[in-house]
């Protein structure tokens, strides 16, 4: 026991040393008047590392681009952006702890970070109590509107609502019944509550729903339920997370639940990155809904994909979360330049109304700290990309969903002190 305690102490020291060295640095050199250090906080280890490391890559790329174009210009001085990368380790309390470190110890004016809703919920109190600012790039369930978080991902009405509408009205299974499948945590449950309300409004029917506990890959009971509820095909809305998708698609294909037999799956968590992991042969003919898809045929989109590949390797892909991460760095830069200072409150005020010509098309920051975005519905093709079928106009974000029973009739507006986080419309 004596020895093991000594070893433990050694291990603790070693892990502290590792933590202490986890810092990054800037990219290009040039002539700058000063530097500004920002924080990047994503999981670089643990289960979420696979997804979140792509965001770190994108954010670094955006920062390098800005530096190469002369940096941030504040008050007649040009600032080179440097960054400190911290590892949230797929562990939600660690996200809060590292946020405190970035704000207090490193004094960064802004933190780009997070992926899972759980990590955001853990960080939120830190940013609110210190009145600091977090930029969060992932499509999520909304029902939250913080003065200290800026959300560049889609809210449900910017992803799932147009998708449900498409499935019920214009997909090959139009008019069919719905079955909802998701992982058992907050995003799928909230998203499905909204979908159920919407399907009811449309006059359709949800014939079943089921949630797979995180980490569980046994899909057999769900398959028998789908077959019982939708004997002749129908619409499946899928909000499963991560590798549960692989199990789901492998097994439903083996069970004969395929587009050729009338079952069409609409996915909210499968982007280009996931298609290549699951294998396009399992996904071909199913659908996805995103703001950004790599196959968007505009110069901005092509340039984004090309520079990412050039920076990180030709086999890499870009997807919606990365585009959101890319946009938020640029929007922060614009807001800082407009505000003429790095001070949180001034930047926050300058941020609302910022417009950016993003890879997905024009986006604009709304008073509820979310982005107005374009929604696209795509069919997954054999090459592992999306064939874009539909494109909405610019959709305004709803921080409080208008179909969810608990938030119907509420909105958020941080520009008007009398309205704030949640006011009645």
């Amino acid at each position, binding site marked *: 026991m004596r020895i093991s305690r000594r070893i433990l102490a050694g291990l603790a020291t070693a892990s502290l040393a590792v933590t202490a060295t986890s810092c990054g640095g800037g990219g290009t050199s040039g002539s700058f008047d000063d530097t500004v250090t920002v924080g990047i906080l994503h999981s670089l280890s643990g289960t979420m590392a696979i997804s979140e490391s792509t965001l770190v890559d994108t954010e670094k790329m955006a920062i390098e681009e800005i530096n190469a174009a002369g940096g941030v210009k504040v008050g007649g001085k040009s600032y080179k952006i440097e960054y400190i990368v911290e590892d949230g380790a797929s562990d939600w309390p660690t996200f809060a702890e590292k946020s405190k470190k970035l704000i207090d110890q490193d004094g960064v004016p802004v933190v780009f970070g997070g992926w899972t809703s759980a990590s955001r919920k853990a960080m939120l109190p830190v940013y609110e109590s210190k009145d600091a600012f977090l930029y969060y790039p992932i499509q999520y369930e909304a029902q939250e509107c913080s003065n200290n978080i800026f959300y560049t991902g889609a809210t449900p009405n910017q992803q799932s609502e147009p998708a449900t509408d498409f499935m019920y009205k214009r997909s090959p299974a139009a008019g069919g019944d719905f079955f909802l499948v998701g992982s058992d945590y907050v995003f799928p449950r909230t998203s499905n509550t909204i979908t159920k309300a919407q399907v009811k409004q449309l006059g359709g029917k949800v014939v079943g729903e089921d949630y797979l506990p995180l980490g569980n*890959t046994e899909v057999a009971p769900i398959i028998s339920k789908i077959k019982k509820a939708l004997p002749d095909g129908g619409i499946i809305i899928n909000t499963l997370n991560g590798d549960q998708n692989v*199990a789901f698609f492998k097994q439903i294909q083996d069970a*004969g639940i395929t587009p050729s037999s009338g079952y069409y799956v609409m996915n909210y968590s499968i982007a280009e990155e996931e298609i290549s992991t699951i294998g396009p042969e399992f996904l071909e003919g199913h659908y996805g809904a995103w703001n950004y898809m790599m196959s968007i045929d505009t110069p901005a989109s092509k340039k984004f994909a090309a520079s990412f590949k050039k920076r990180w390797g030709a086999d890499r892909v870009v997807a919606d979360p990365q585009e959101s991460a890319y946009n938020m760095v640029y929007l922060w830069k614009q807001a800082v330049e407009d505000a003429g200072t790095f001070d949180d409150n001034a930047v926050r005020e300058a941020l609302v109304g910022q417009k950016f010509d993003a890879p997905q098309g024009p986006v604009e920051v709304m008073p509820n700290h979310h982005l107005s975005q374009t929604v696209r519905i795509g069919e997954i093709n054999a090459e592992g990309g999306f064939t874009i079928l539909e494109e909405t106009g610019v959709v305004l974000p709803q921080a409080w969903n208008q179909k969810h029973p608990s938030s119907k009739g509420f909105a958020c507006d941080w520009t008007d002190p009398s309205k704030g986080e949640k006011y009645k419309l």
Partner: protein
Amino acid sequence: MELLLDSLFNGVAIGSVLLVAALGLAIVFGLMGVINLAHGELMMLGAYTTYVTQLIFKLPILKPFYNSYIIVSIFLAFIVSGVVGILLEKTIIRKLYGSPLETLLATWGVSLILQQFVRSVPLAYGTGLVISLLIGLFLPTTFPSKIKESINFKYFKFSSWIFAALTGVLTGSLISSSVSKLSRASARNVDVTAPSWMRGQVEIIGTAFPKTRLMIIVITLISVIAITLFLNQSAWGMRIRAVTQNRQMSDCLGISTEKVDIITFGIGSGLAGVAGVAVSLLGSVGPNVGGNYIVGCFMVVVLGGVGNLLGTVLASFGIGIMTDLIGAGRLLSIWPDMPLPLTNTINFFATTSMARVMIFALIVIFLQFKPTGLFPQKGRMVEN
């Protein structure tokens, strides 16, 4: 009839995944009493072996045999996980027999190391490392006894390890240069695609069954039969059972308990590897794949009664069938017009999450009445 068949098949299908995963643990935990938290990671190694084999069979030389890669990978997975298991036993677990708490912590540490290993080491070199371990551990045992008994044996042993290391590095770089996907480390989950003859469904008496599920059932059946025959018919099997029942007495009677421990642990770990092949057919292969199964494995072994293979078999099929009955709400289709409160209760539990809750609750209740599981072991070891 069709419903019953469907339900039974689903139950058996779910149960056989549990069984194949728990079989190795039933031996390691059940017979040896070692709480091996790295069992899931040994499964993960088996799953990665399947992936590597699949990619190697895509090389032009082996392309004609591509369809049979899954069969080959079953044997390879057994060997890979077995070798890693033996190394684990020789280096860590042997020193911790009789101290379950330390074993638990040590094997948990090993499981973290193995997870990070597959994340940060290119699979090609991982394969090379396993090959050097295999040669290094087994080459010395093939030497003629004259050499083994000579005083210079340690030099022979040492030189065979050098040879092993060289072969490992060579195969590692060979694989890494010929299969580009294996040459870089990646934390990304990878995918095993079943060969075409194993995809789709077969019709038996009017009901369609997925072929991969049938394959898993077959793998499970063969593993169970093989291990039962080994334990009951072979000389080593007899020694294993003897040591399990009374270690001191067996030792006195001239059984090398050290060797028995290695063999038992090696076989248990090898079976985890076979389970890895089975689960790779169902989902994706990633560093965390084993962790998803470990709780289920312990649950099956405890419910079945520690140290009893029949108990493990019955427990896993029992849990499988219950999962399907509760999770898919089948009782309602069997008895459609039951009273309303009962219908509501069943519907409440008819989701995958709640079915799991229900099953755990049932197991907890069951263990209140029979704390030693379905088939408790009788013997001196238990009484001590």
